[in-house]
């Protein structure tokens, strides 16, 4: 429905018939409201000159077919930490100008978690990417602007994942587009509700369609394992005064994504003294001073700054103390 542009595109006639041949038929077919007129003519004679006669003209308008197709445009499950944007296409596969009610449903059977729908957005500048402040926001459940027949819009679904997710937990969000004129079993009719006041008829899609977009929780976590080896003054491994204890701190990041600003701190145990110059990171020596390298060490403790550590990588820090 919407807008009553009169589209008399199909007058019977040679000129228009030729034009129609030049352009291939659209998938959605003749637009709603198109006037179809048919007139036959005959020529004959009754012994004299040729005469001609036209039949009456039969005419009717093409009704509006209500059909729609929704398809997720994300090639794979989107990793989600915090907020992300799912992308869908909504195609008007009917033959009239039609707005569609767009509804994103976060609770889909089989979900490990459900996201919050923050908003929908229409890809106003048509670049396929959500541009905050440029693309028109739409409340979930609101109606789109009319879409021309055979045309598609890109719909973004802005979601926020709940806190406390475990890595690799999966979720789906379903976007449904329903013809604003109405939906129903194919063949359902809405009298006079189509373009130019023609009847609207529900097509094979039921005038609504949906598709799901997938999300996967991308959570990185750190495992820190501390171990110690002792070398006593007598070559044994007894914790005697004067024995040297080597502490090893192994940090590994698991899951997916990355850990930002990861720093390993450790205090020098009581009754021990830090052995100066023994701090290492991944078998490379670090100076004790606070300088350009990643580590600092003092009588009270050590600190090694690892920065951003991607999931799947690990780092080992060692230092030595002497038992007092």
């Amino acid at each position, binding site marked *: 429905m919407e807008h009553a542009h009169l589209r008399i595109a199909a007058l019977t006639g*040679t000129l228009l018939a030729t034009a129609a*041949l030049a352009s291939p038929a659209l998938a959605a077919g*003749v637009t709603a409201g198109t006037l179809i007129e*048919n007139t*036959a003519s005959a*020529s*004959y004679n*009754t012994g004299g000159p040729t005469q001609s006669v036209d039949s009456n003209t039969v005419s*009717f308008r093409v009704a509006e077919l209500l059909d729609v197709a929704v398809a997720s445009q994300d090639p794979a499950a989107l990793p989600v930490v915090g907020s992300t944007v799912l992308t869908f296409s909504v195609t008007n596969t009917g033959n009239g100008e039609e707005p569609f009610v767009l509804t994103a449903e976060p609770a889909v059977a089989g979900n490990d978690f459900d996201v919050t729908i923050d908003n929908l957005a229409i890809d106003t500048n048509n670049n396929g990417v959500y541009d905050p402040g440029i693309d028109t926001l739409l409340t979930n459940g609101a109606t789109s602007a009319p879409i021309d027949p055979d045309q598609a819009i890109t719909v973004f679904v802005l979601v926020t994942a709940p806190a406390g997710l475990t890595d690799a937990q999966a979720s789906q969000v379903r976007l449904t587009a329903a013809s604003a004129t109405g939906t129903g079993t194919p063949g359902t009719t809405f009298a006079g509700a189509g373009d130019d006041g023609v009847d609207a008829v529900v097509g094979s899609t039921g005038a609504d369609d949906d598709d799901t977009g997938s999300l996967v929780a991308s959570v990185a976590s750190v495992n820190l394992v501390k171990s110690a080896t002792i070398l006593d003054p007598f070559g044994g491994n007894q914790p005697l005064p004067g024995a040297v204890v080597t502490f090893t701190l192994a940090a590994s990041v698991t899951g997916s994504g990355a850990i930002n600003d990861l720093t390993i701190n450790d205090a020098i145990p009581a009754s021990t003294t830090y052995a100066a110059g023994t701090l290492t990171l991944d078998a490379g020596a670090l100076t004790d001073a606070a300088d350009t390298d990643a580590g600092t060490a003092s009588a009270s403790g050590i600190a090694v700054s690892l920065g951003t550590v991607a999931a799947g990588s690990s780092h080992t820090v060692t230092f030595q103390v002497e038992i007092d």
Partner: protein
Amino acid sequence: MLSRLFAVLSLALAAQIAAPMALAQGQNAVSLSGDVQVVRTIEENGTARTVLEPPTQVVPGDRLVFSTSYRNTSGQVVEDFVITNPLPAAVVLAENGAFAVSVDGAKSFGSLASLSVTLEDGATRPAELADVTHVRWTLDRLEPGASGSVTYFATIR
């Protein structure tokens, strides 16, 4: 007031008289009457049945039957009787029939199999149903009072 009313009445009378006269002058020996119906398949108790209905709620892909009834309303024999029907641009011929077709806007007619279409690059290909712009029936001779009808099936583009 009265004279104005009279003027209106006489105008109406004049129109009534003029109409049959005009008809008589341009009277045709043949009358043509067109009709269109939509062909629907209705499923009843598991069996499909084809019915013809008035063309309401017609959507792309629907099948239509266009018919033209003719009658020789004169007392004379009608000869070289040819009915030509340009196809509405919004429909495509659904099936071949006992008629000649044109794929070039009525410049030439023939059987679909005998016609070809010239492509943009100058090559030609056999004509298809979708190329048909006109259908034509040649009935040659109609005796006084003879009547009949011709039909073609088309699908909404």
